[in-house]
């Protein structure tokens, strides 16, 4: 395997070199990552809600219509011929979370976490056992429940959307809760509004995506640190319940019309989003989360997060680091052109990214009503900003290929603006408090793999919106995606 990888990188280098010839077309996303479609059996409406890959390499996909399908051979080259579909279960209530453990499939339904088993080996589940139904629903369609895989302690993490996405009228709506395989129920974080998905990073920390709306200026990726408050105060009423004490003291109510970092200063539990996805520029409704666990089999983005967007039918890329002990970092466009509105994503260890979609009720650029797709790496490495690191006086950019030192050292190759959002009870927010920092220097590292840019001056609490239009690779290519958006909640101390 290693051998092929090496070969393919070599091959990639050759291809890249050939791109640089003036007459060649500029490469596109499709040259690096290909979308492979699953052929969904006729008469099946697979409005994908969650995806799980079991140890026996079966892909389980749940649908909003309450079915779970198991697919054998999900890595097959010819999916139409080799993938084998079986309906594992039906009749469930809008399953938006799938996990597996000890031969059981765990499905997060609207009203409960349920474990399913095929006890007679006919390929169909016949036991549907309730693991926990400690939260409530009242019949409001917006009361969704998204569930994670298992964490290392045997918990499924569940984020519970608010009633109507605005208020918390049922128990633990607006919360993240943990349910252990043994049924133990632990209220974990408050402040959830309208989640799009939940997942872990490589370190095993749990994140979820929340969507633009009240107290959320735009969609974002947030770290579910136990005891933290994620920003929407309506669910805080459940702190009065006995078991909610496990989530720590009730946070103060934030002041509407303020700014996130002003309130975070005042309310210790308030967790500023690790990543804001600027509205329209990156997407309109962030959803599925998973990290690249392929150790290079999926390209150069090892351990980075992939986050989907339902409206734009895209997958974005996120690089996180820690500032003042809290996650923050940058998001980059990664791949567009999926068939429907992306919701679940699942990365496999062998270097594939499964993406499921539905656009029922919420339109998407991909115009299919539903889809299941697999993103495969072609083996060619795109010229991309690899990582973006905040510095006391600017940023350090690393690249997937060596840069052309001339264009990379030219400050005119970079353009930056900064802005933030009003943190308010009204729906969403325009971008406000704009600044236009001057790029005062761009210093290329001796190995040409990174550039240190100094700006006048970084603004804490702002998104730093960077366009790197001018930088070329050594091979003369422009960046596949010149945009990067760094959520600079905290400016790092000056390096000693």
């Amino acid at each position, binding site marked *: 395997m290693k051998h092929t990888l090496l070969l393919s990188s070599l091959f990639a280098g050759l291809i890249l070199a050939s791109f640089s010839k003036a007459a060649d077309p500029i490469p596109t996303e499709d040259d690096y990552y290909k979308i492979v479609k699953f052929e969904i059996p006729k008469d099946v409406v697979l409005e994908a809600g969650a995806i799980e890959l079991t140890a026996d390499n079966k892909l389980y996909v749940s649908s909003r219509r309450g079915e779970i399908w198991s697919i054998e051979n999900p890595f097959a080259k010819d999916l139409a011929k080799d993938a084998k579909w079986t309906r594992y279960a039906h009749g469930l209530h809008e399953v938006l979370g799938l996990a597996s453990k000890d031969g059981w499939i765990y499905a997060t339904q609207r009203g409960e976490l349920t474990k399913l088993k095929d006890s007679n080996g006919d390929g169909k589940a016949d*036991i549907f056992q309730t693991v926990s139904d400690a939260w409530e629903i009242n019949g409001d369609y917006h009361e969704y429940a998204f569930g994670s895989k298992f964490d290392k302690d045997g918990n499924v993490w569940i984020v519970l959307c608010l009633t109507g996405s605005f208020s918390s009228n049922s128990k633990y709506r607006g919360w993240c809760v943990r349910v252990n395989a043994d049924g133990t129920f632990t209220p974990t974080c408050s402040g959830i509004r309208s989640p799009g998905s939940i997942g872990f990073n490589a370190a095993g920390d749990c994140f979820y995506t929340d969507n633009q709306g009240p107290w959320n200026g735009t969609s974002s990726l947030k770290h579910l640190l136990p005891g933290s408050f994620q920003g929407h105060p309506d669910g805080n009423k459940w702190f009065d319940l006995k078991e909610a004490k496990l989530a720590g003291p009730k946070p103060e109510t934030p002041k509407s019309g303020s700014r996130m970092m002003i309130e975070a200063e005042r309310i210790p539990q308030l967790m500023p989003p690790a990543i804001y996805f600027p509205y329209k520029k990156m997407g309109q409704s962030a959803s599925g989360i998973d990290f690249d666990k392929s150790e290079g089999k999926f390209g150069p983005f090892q351990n980075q997060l992939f986050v989907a967007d339902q409206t734009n039918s895209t997958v974005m890329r996120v690089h996180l680091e820690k500032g003042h002990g809290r996650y923050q970092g940058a998001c980059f466009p990664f791949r567009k052109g999926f068939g429907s509105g992306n919701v679940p994503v699942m990365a496999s260890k062998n270097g594939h990214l499964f993406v499921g979609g539905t656009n029922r009720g919420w339109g998407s650029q991909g115009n299919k009503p539903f889809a299941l797709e697999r993103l495969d790496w072609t083996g060619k490495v795109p010229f991309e900003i690899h990582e973006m690191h905040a510095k006391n006086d600017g940023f350090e950019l690393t690249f997937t290929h060596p840069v052309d030192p001339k264009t990379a050292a030219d400050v005119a190759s970079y353009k930056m603006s900064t802005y933030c959002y009003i943190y308010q009870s009204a*729906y969403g927010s325009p971008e406000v408090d704009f600044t236009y920092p001057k790029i005062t220097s761009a210093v290329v590292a001796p190995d040409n793999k990174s550039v240190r840019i100094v700006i006048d001056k970084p603004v804490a609490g702002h998104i730093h919106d960077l366009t790197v239009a001018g930088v070329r690779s050594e091979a003369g290519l422009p960046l596949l995606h010149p945009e990067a958006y760094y959520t600079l909640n905290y400016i790092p101390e000056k390096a000693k």
Partner: protein
Amino acid sequence: MRKNISVLALCFFITALNPAQILAADASKRPIVPGFERFSQGKEIDQAQLGLLLLGELNCTSCHAPTATTKGLIQAKQAPLLDKVAGRIKPEYFESFIAKTHEIKPGSTMPQVSLGNNEQEKQATAKALAHYLAQQAGANEKLIFDPKQVALGKTLFAQSGCVSCHAGRDQAAKEILNVNNSVPLGALENKYTVGSLTNFLENPHQVRPSGRMPAVLKDQKEAHAVACYLLQSAKTSPKSAGVLKFEYFEGSWTKLPDFTKLNAIAKGIASDFDVEVAKKVNNNALRFEGWFKLQSAGKYTLHLGSDDGSKIWIDGKLIIDNDGIHPHTIISKTVELYKGEHKVEVGIFDGGGEYSLTVEIESNNLPRQPLSGICALDEKTAEGTTKAAYVATAPGKPEVFKLDTELATKGRALFASVGCANCHGMNENNKRIPALVQGPELLKLRPETGCLSENPQGKSPDFALDTKQKAAIALALKNLASMPPSQDSKALINQTFLSLNCYACHQRDKIGGPEDSRNASFVTTQPEMGDEGRLPPALTGVGAKLNTDWLKQVLEQGTKVRPYMLVRMPKYGGNNVNPLIKPLGEVDTIEPVEAIQFADTPAKVKTSGRLLVGSKALGCIKCHTFNNQKAEGIQALDLTSMPQRLKRDWFQRYMLDPQPFRPGTRMPAPWPMGKTFFDEILEGSTKKQIEGIYVYLSQGSKASPPEGLSRESIVLVPEKEPIIYRNFIEGAGARAIGVGYPEKVNLAFDANSLRVAMIWQGAFIDASRHWRDRGVGYQPPLGDNVISLPAGPTFATLASEKENWPALTSKEQAGTFISYTTDALGRPSFQYKYADVMITDFPTPTNNKEGGFSRAFTLESKTPPALLYLRAAVGTKIEEQKDGWFLVDGEYKFRLVGANKPIVRESNGKKEILVPIVFENGVCKLVQEYSW
């Protein structure tokens, strides 16, 4: 904590009384012109333009003649027309308002007119004018206060746009004073009756033709509701001393009873002919008695209104018979009455429903008014009209107005001579009363003189202008002489936006838009649309956006194309807004998009447009309604209205990139970076696709609906094995588990209350509610003969056989839902736990020809509880039949197999059948069969 709060409150109180605040009170009498109030503090609009605004809003040109060159620069606001004014304004209001204009209504743009040289003369002038106005009788609106309308009125006042210009109201509907830039309303209850305010609100332009007060409310019903809301304090103000005796009776009648044959349950003194003194609504009657005195003999009209029947007697003689069961109905009758004292008696009864009574009197010299106003308890105290025009009344009792025609004649002369006629239109023999006061010409006015002086003297009216207002007027006057005779289009638009206060709701070129203090009053039925769903659109570039005909219609007639936005675009009236149309077209331009040549036939272009709008392509219908058919998600503006509203060039450019036109809009860019996703439609040309949509939608309501619009049913039909459907099922809760069996019987298990909630026959369920669109709401069963089984737990332990069956107040009380497992045929067996008992509940269809269920219960426990029961049935009527069957309410039959003898009992007014559960070796098995 509480203590801290009160200390804080005290601090505020002290602050409120500081001398600076008291001094500021005078400035608070300045005329409130919202555009001036708002923009005189900033730099967005220059002071000279604001001065022009004041010259128009204060109607300066009605006394100070403009020259031909300055006339077109001022948009004068016409004062209210006063024809028939006594028909809409209470006569007793006139004198006080004329005499003390700024005290009675601070902020009024009406000046304090100079009424004379000394207090006595001033008072006499005001009185004469008041009598003249009171003589201008008009039709009285017969609507009365209806407490049931108050809530609607409150909502309309708060949400439909009234508070965009006026101040909000407190819990008691009192105007919240000192709200920035609000047009004050004053004490409406002293000025209007419910009927006259309704009339005004329904059609404000009839008396105020200049459109500053636009018509917001859509019909008389809404206007009445707002009037009831605004005037409710009049209804709850302290009552006057008693003027009538009353007797109260109870009984059930369809006609007014003979009171002489009844014994009164209660007697007392009432301040009005008002049913509020009744001890209850429905099945009672009231009899009122009092005296009134007339100054002169003549014809008097009595108006008797009631719900239900009523009668009025004068001096023992029946005058009006308004008897029988009916809604509030007014009957009027004119009678000859002699000078002197008269006894009045009124009887009323209420059979059921609404209860109301109004008794009014009217004559040539007595404007229509409540009769109680001139009534007294007995003959001797009855007040005559021989006294002063105002009858001295008990404290708190409304003053009663009696017209003095001599005074009115004097008032007629004064109306012209003191200057009222300069501003107010009043017709006399079909001709407007000419103005007699003439001030210096407009261009000859000098600052700090006349109306602009510190304390206006002599004939000059006093507008109570503050320094800022005077300065702005002075600046405008200075500039006027050198200004060209007509404003350029941009200035004219700005001037109109200021005078009609368009800026209160709309932003244009970064000026205006809802103020922070009012922002929260703009609300929506669809919060998910964000500000777009609640704030009126910005009007920057509106002339390039809207078709001229549509723009004209919107301005003249108002519109409601955004059903989710609760604030309304009101009617301004053609004369006031039509002058905007041409300038908007001139100022707002957009680069034209060249004509498009299609390779396809026109029919094919429309077909392509339809394809693009539908769910197979752009899916516009996911968010936009189509010809009033609902969208899947949010319900944005109707697609079929677009070409009627929007200019083609604008539509082309907007679709390409919506953000610059509507910053922050949720409308996605359907052609990101100008590129199409659909190469096969209309040659893959973005421009052609946009045009195709425009052409298709231009058919308006005739456009054939796009694909994906209608919600087709999805009927779930179990064929070989059962279908399970967990969802929101009506009658079985938010965690229902529906099961449809191939045998055509169905059930719904409620996983919250742990019971089979419903059983039914025939078709199972239609899943389209939940499987199309977002899935809003509860879906009922699709089939026939739906039987709802008893609410509450299936099993419970009771302390005794007498104890009521427990009601469920929480999910936890019901027990714990454990699981369901399916057998080889796919039939679920439910497991739940109650009081350490594991219960397996396995329903299977029975094979009898009627169709039914057999429900096999297995209960297991290591520590079986005593006094555990199954509640087999609840009903009003449970009949035992042969073979152990029971018939419940004639609807369904059940029987128990292998069970202990059931207990039949009465509980909570119903029959119940309980089955005692007895364990053997920790197990109990029994079967309940259903047939229906």
